[in-house]
């Protein structure tokens, strides 16, 4: 149980093994693990940044959507208002046009009525002349007495 040259030999073996393990096993493994840890950390950071960006984009989309909805509501309200105005305008225009048509028709009827009255007066005047000739049995000068007859007829049909 005493120390001997094996002790020296074991020191050499041990220190050589430490050197070799550091260079060929521990070093490469530790470097690889550190590189992987960094990669994972970067990936997680990127994922966090992505989540943050997504949340920001979602918020922006929500704001834009709200604005678009408000704008669309305003456009619809304006369109409805304009439509109602146009509707009212066309109703008024139609009424005016209808009134104009009615007025025109009424004027035409009056004119026609006046014409018919004039025709009837002339015919009645002629009949009256014929009737007067026969009654007085005398020939009357139509041109000379026409004004007289017309006056009589106008007086007779003045209220017709």
């Amino acid at each position, binding site marked *: 149980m005493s120390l001997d*040259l*094996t002790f020296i030999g074991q020191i050499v*073996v041990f220190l*050589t*093994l430490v050197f070799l*393990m*550091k260079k060929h*096993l*521990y070093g490469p*493994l530790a470097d690889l693990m550190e590189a992987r840890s960094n990669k994972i950390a970067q990936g997680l950071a990127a994922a966090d940044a992505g989540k943050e960006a997504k949340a920001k984009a979602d918020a922006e989309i929500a704001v834009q959507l709200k604005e678009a909805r408000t704008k669309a509501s305003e456009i619809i309200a304006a369109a409805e208002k304009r439509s109602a105005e146009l509707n009212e305008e066309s109703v008024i225009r139609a009424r005016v046009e209808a009134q104009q048509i009615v007025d025109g028709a009424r004027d035409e009827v009056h004119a026609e009525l006046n014409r018919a009255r004039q025709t009837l007066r002339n015919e009645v005047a002629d009949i009256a002349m014929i009737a007067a000739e026969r009654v007085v049995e005398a020939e009357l000068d139509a041109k000379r007495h026409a004004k007289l007859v017309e006056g009589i007829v106008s007086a007779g049909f003045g209220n017709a």
Partner: protein
Amino acid sequence: MAEQSHGEGGIAGHLQYWTLKIDESSPFMQIHLDTMLVSLVVACGMFLFALWLKGKLVDGAPSGAQNFMESVVGFIDQTVKDNFPVHNPLIAPLAFTVFCFIALVNTIDILPAFLLGNVAHMFGVVHFRPVPTNDLNLPAAMAVSVFALVLYYEFKLKPVHFCKELVMEPFTSLVPGFLKPVVMPINLILKLVEEVAKPLSLSFRLFGNMFAGEVIFLLISFLLLGGGAVGMAAGFFVGLAWTAFHLFIGFLQAFIFMILTVVYLSIAHQPVEHH
């Protein structure tokens, strides 16, 4: 576990080393060839494994041997980080080598007690001790290497403080001024004992545990072979239980040696406290 009784001289006969004597007059001038051979085989195995693994390391998700070794490296790296105040790139590989080398060497002890001895006998070797940690030379070599590193860092990082501590602690501050020179040699002696106790305890703890384990294996093997059918059955089950326990002890000792190495080096790296 023991399989058969072998050789003459009982247990003591199995505790002889395969020795090459260089100078008969000096007990130091000899080499335990079995210790050297087995430790070299284990060291070469570790080196070849390292080269093999290095060639097939993958960046992505590790598997198999790489996964296992990454777990070991991660565990040791964390242990060193937890105990070490500063970063020193040598400490973690040193702790890793200490743990793996001792654990592997200790694991040889669970092979059947006379297996490697019988193989050696086939080659004409009379005595063969298969477990290098059962030889004080290996634990002492590792402990002295660690102690040399501790002294190196003590002198490198805080030489004045270390030298001052050697002669001033623990009594100088407790005695009046005129007695200080008197207590300095006592301080030095106590401090030297304290420092030398570190490699001694480190090496003897490992050596004692593993040596005792081997002796118990040999006792069980003699029980197995010498007690008839009942003795054989009892020896078999006791041997099986002791194998499992000794495997655990082997890993525990490797861990203790590793953690104490880290702690001693950590103490050497502690910054000086100014009062």
